[in-house]
């Protein structure tokens, strides 16, 4: 049984004027075992942060559709009443680290009190127990225990993000969702936070959903990568394969658009414009920007299974539909998988 199994999850927003934004549109993935990390990679507006909010059930008011299946250790979460979800799941089983380490912390509360808040609300800890636990947590994220008595403004950005991680770890969650945890940090501080996440992934073996726009950063930590575009997962697969042999043209172009440090190949700009989320193109949502698009792409492609437990939502992966195009565009990819 998977630790976390998300199946056909939808989160749509009512954008007013009869418009609907399909932020999460039929997303499926699993986290199989403890200590596995899945990278959710996408541009802004691809629905990757909405996925995090859906899993934490921290929904805005204008939700138009929220359904599908989220199973944690076999327990279906979608059907749980809000009150039970808050008491039994949020923060204690699934926790989250937010993007803006600067704005998430309360400026007038000492660090220790902020970390202790979920501990005291949970009821498992008395004051003395919570104090000891806060010291433990601070140490685990690489901060001195006496930081508990400091205020957020006394901390650097990297230190504040460590506090955010300590807060999320307070109740020993099974799954940690990280939403762009390093995007506001310098590269050297980013590397330190990534090192910390690698440690936590190994010991105590926390499973992670790592949400980022930077596929390089995702590959640094994650075992598998899911590439999202316009609310859909375009590709899912082992990071080692997705980086070298992406099976979806969007993943290919995304990788080609990154400036590489040790390559003379110049980065190529992504063709076309980002999609208008309130009026998505018919058929494959990427086809207006796709250099390989052909007639069939006007039909909406399903996630086509790949031999490595992954999938790609692109007709080119179906040899019967793609015909000779399958050979042309995905041949080198095929070779890399073998």
């Amino acid at each position: 049984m998977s630790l976390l199994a998300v199946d056909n999850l939808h989160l749509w927003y009512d954008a007013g004027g009869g418009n609907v934004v399909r932020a999460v549109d039929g997303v499926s993935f699993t986290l199989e075992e403890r200590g596995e990390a899945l990278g959710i990679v996408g541009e802004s507006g691809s629905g990757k942060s909405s996925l995090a909010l859906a899993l934490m059930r921290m929904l805005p008011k204008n939700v138009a559709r929220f359904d599908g299946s989220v199973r944690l250790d076999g327990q279906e979460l979608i059907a749980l009443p809000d009150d039970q979800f808050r008491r039994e799941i949020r923060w204690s089983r699934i926790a989250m680290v937010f993007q803006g380490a600067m704005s998430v912390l309360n400026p007038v509360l000492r660090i220790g009190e902020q970390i202790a808040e979920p501990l005291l609300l949970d009821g498992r800890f008395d004051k003395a127990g919570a104090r000891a636990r806060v010291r433990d947590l601070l140490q685990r994220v690489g901060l001195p225990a006496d930081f508990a008595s400091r205020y957020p403004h006394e901390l650097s950005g990297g230190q504040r993000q460590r506090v955010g991680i300590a807060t999320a770890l307070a109740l020993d969650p099974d799954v940690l969702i990280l939403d762009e945890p390093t995007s506001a940090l310098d590269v050297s501080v980013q590397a330190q936070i990534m090192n910390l996440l690698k440690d936590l992934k190994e010991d105590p073996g926390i499973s992670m959903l790592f949400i980022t726009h930077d596929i390089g950063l995702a590959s640094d930590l994650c075992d598998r990568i899911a590439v999202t575009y316009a609310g859909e997962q375009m590709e899912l697969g082992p990071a080692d394969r997705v980086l070298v042999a992406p099976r979806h043209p969007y993943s290919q172009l995304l990788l080609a658009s990154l400036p590489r440090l040790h390559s003379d190949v110049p980065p190529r700009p992504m063709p076309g414009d980002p999609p208008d989320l309130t009026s998505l193109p018919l058929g494959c949502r990427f086809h207006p920007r796709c250099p390989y698009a052909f007639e069939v792409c006007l039909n909406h492609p399903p996630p086509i299974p790949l031999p490595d437990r992954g999938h790609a939502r692109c007709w080119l992966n179906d040899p019967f539909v793609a015909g000779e195009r399958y050979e042309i565009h995905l041949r080198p990819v095929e070779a890399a998988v073998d």
Partner: protein
Amino acid sequence: MTETLLVPPAVVPKSGPLLALDDVSMVFQTRKGLFRGGTVTAVSGVSLVVAHGETLALVGESGSGKTTVGRISIRLLQPTSGRVLFDGQDISQVPEEQLGWLRKRAAIVFQDPFSSLNPYMTVSDLVAEPLVIDGVNDVDARRAQVRAALEAVDLTPIERFVHAYPTSMSGGQRQRVGIARALIRNPDYIVADEPVSMVDASSRVEILDLLNGLQRDHDVAFLYITHDIASARHFADHIAVMHLGSIVETGSAPQIIDQPVHPYTRALIAAVPEPDPANRFRRRATEPWQDAPGAAIHPGCPHGGSIDEPAVLLEVSGQPGHIVACHLEPARAR
């Protein structure tokens, strides 16, 4: 690590660079008050050269002073000491009223396209504003120049954008407006201060390609300020690495990326997460240099350098133009 031989740099007379900073320092006054006062040295002893029509990338982390250097280079800030030569003229202490000519020849593109554009102005008003200030009163002439600038930055079809407000545009499109604004006076030199850090990853290359194209077509020189050393490799001719207010290493882009000498440059390069399976799960070396404010040298310096001796600029032997600031090597070089 391979031993790098450092030698004193040959003094090559530069044949009139467009911009030259010579030993520029900037000290800011902080905490003004009757009983409390303090200073922050944001930039100390920076010298750099930008040739006509070339791009120099100024790479560093936040607080390194790279934005301050960019602003000094077009006299948005007056340096505390040192000379700023623009086309041979020292502009470092000239009063602002006499800098009208510089404002036409040098421009800046700001980092944040969300806060640097007035939300109450349309795109055409934003782009035309410098011309209005210049006293171009002919509305038709202004309109023609605005159209040309919007075309140059690929904001087409123009009709869709001229009357648009920035709030209805994406980050990449807004940044194009910022570039068109900088371009409208046909400058020779543009400071691009983190022009793509707030733009979506997949649109960054497009903006940088655009800047490259402008350089080709209009012979503009760029000071490209960035924290992303990988993008500097592809979009700059030369790279200068800044750390705590000083330039620690300069050279051609391949020299800096492929054969970095200064420990800070090496650490900066090592911290870049590359999407390459070979790099995965590797713990990145992160010496605590950012926890040592004020230390002019990387605590992880493999030479065990001492900062008792002032840093000296030395050239990497066999690599003309590849200069590194080192505290330790002077003793060896002697």
